[in-house]
């Protein structure tokens, strides 16, 4: 097999997902053995403006300029992989959608705010077609590896469409609800091996919401445990605010 020409791109994000890849250690070299990295701005000076076999894109679309750039990347890429919460669901960048855009710009930039354009944050698939999703903030390296292999083999990858609780139970964590704490695990897509709960924190929903959540049931649970619904909605918005937006493609 020819090594696919692969380019890494970053839109608005913290670049932590790229870093997760750098953190592969020496096995990164195995990955570089099978792909031909032609552009990776954070670690490479080389640039590439031709056809790309695989575009691996991090970050969300936060202004028109980014949307245009993304569309151009899509046009010359055979496969688009969105990775990280920013790219796949909008992630923390989406929180700004809860505010009036002009107001938040003014708050941060003062009177000069008009020089700094901004649009509502969007996930990548809300602007262009995406072939593979690697959810998570940051990405869970084993999942990234699996998606990469599937892409190379030309077979689909299905993001788990069941709750983080599944993995959490298998890891035999004491359920946060047993400890009187609200956790977003029951409505969040698994695939991270319940990373946060394994380390004593709650799930913040960074992998997006399962496709068919039982919203009424969840509300019942929340009220049963005496937790304020507004509190949960607020938590949910931390990563999942963008799901309210229409897709440009539709």
């Amino acid at each position, binding site marked *: 097999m020819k090594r696919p020409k692969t380019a890494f791109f970053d*839109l*608005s*994000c*913290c*670049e*932590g*997902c*790229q*870093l*997760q890849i*750098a953190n*592969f*250690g*020496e096995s*990164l*070299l195995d990955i*570089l053995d099978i792909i031909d990295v032609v552009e*990776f*701005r*954070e*670690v*490479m*000076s*080389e*640039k590439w403006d031709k056809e790309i076999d695989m575009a691996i894109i991090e970050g969300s679309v*936060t*202004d028109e300029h*980014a949307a245009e750039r993304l569309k151009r990347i899509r046009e010359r890429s055979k496969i688009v992989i969105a990775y990280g919460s920013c790219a796949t669901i909008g992630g*923390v960048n989406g*929180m*700004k959608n*809860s*505010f009036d855009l002009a107001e*938040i*710009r003014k*708050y*941060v*930039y*003062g009177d*000069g705010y008009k020089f*700094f354009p*901004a649009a509502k944050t969007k996930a990548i698939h809300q602007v262009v077609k995406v072939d593979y999703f690697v959810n998570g*903030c*940051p990405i869970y390296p084993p999942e990234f590896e699996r998606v990469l292999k599937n892409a190379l083999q030309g077979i689909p990858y299905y993001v788990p469409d069941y709750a983080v609780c599944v993995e959490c139970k298998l890891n035999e964590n004491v359920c*946060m609800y047993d*400890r*009187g*704490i609200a956790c977003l695990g029951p409505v969040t897509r698994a695939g991270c091996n319940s*990373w*946060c709960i*394994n*380390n*004593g*924190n*709650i799930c*913040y929903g960074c992998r997006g919401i399962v496709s068919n959540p039982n919203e009424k049931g969840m509300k019942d649970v929340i009220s049963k445990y005496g937790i304020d619904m507004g*509190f949960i909605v*607020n*938590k949910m918005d*931390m990563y999942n605010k963008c799901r309210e937006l229409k897709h440009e493609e539709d």
Partner: protein
Amino acid sequence: MKKIKQSMNINVEYLTRVEGHGNIVVNVKEGRLQECRLDIVESPRFFEGILRGRSIFEAQHITSRICGICACGHSLASIQAAEDALGIAPSAQTVKLRKLLLHMEILDSHILHIYLLAAPDLLGVKSFIPLIETHNKVVRRALRMKKACNDVCGVLVGRHVHPISAIVGGFTKLPKQKDLNAMHNTLTGMRPDMEATIDLISKLKFPEFERDTEYVALVNDGNEYPLLAGDIGSTDGVRMNKREYRKATNEFIVPHSSAKHTKLSRESYAVGALARFNLNYEKLHPNAKETASVLGMKPKCINPYLNTAAQLIESAHCLEDAVAIIEDFQNSGIDYSEEITVGLNEQKKIPVKAGNGVGAVEVPRGILYHNYEIDENGVIVNADCIIPTNQNLNNIERDMHKLVPELLSQNHAKSEEEVTLALEMLVRAYDPCISCSTHMIKVGFVC
């Protein structure tokens, strides 16, 4: 100033091998430097804006997402500010574990910078990719060291990028004896690689360029190399409490950049490894001092390119100090009753009070300030973060202003490519983290 002979127009769009998006613009017309600046074009993410209305207890979770490289640093600064606002004093054990985390953060980031971002320039290649062929051992060592730091963070806080278990009040999960042993093994196992790194870097030649400037870093009166706590100090003799950070930074807007600039006693100042080295050299671990002498470095060093060398010196320090902390825990044990449950305050099970707090932490690239004002429910009403890279931007531009004419006026004037590379290397030497720096803030609400 000698006469500049050429005209050139340099525009490096999307500067590579830095974090985030920046452009270098240089315009020389008939011998006169007309323009020379570093544009920050990263689209802003409005972190201070979005923090409003969120619980102080999730601030560190959100602000860690400002930057993937210094996620732990942002977490620690954020936690410090939150605890300051809430009036919580962390336990001695917590502080020690946080120090360990910060050491790992600095070590990890410096290794990344030294090997993957700076070394290619010094070795004359475009990126580390060609090095896989030519310097396979070096690349492997870099990746190995990086992974080791990552593994230690994994054990300590769940992961390095966006740490999980370090929260306001302490840790949600404390390392077990076997975890301590694992971390100890990983770090002591890294020593030969560290020696090899020092050996490698000591043989490389850094560009010669000097410009005297003010260096700013945390300082203290004790013997400890100050990273997690201290006053703000400078080589121009400034010393002030962290709560006065606004007076130490004096942020101002420049039109070409979506990141603010800062100044203190002079027109610009520098933060980061070199600043810390210049201010706190005496407090470095003996191994680090030894490294400094191998590299031939003494304070006060005013060659900005040597920031990379200062990073190496600090790496040696962090590694040894981290090992010492772990050994200490191995001997004295860990008090597991300190493990805290996340979210209790946030869910109003423990009362909170209104307040205003500042966190000032030395992260890999310099002092990072977080400042929050919270209401009586612990909800953030105002937030401000000042990122090291912002503080360096002004200084970088001043360096460029001195460097470009020098390059063009030397006996054999440099070509456009050479100038471009020299400028890129200069910017990279500061290890700028542009995604961090685009946040912006005005409000002056600090007490």
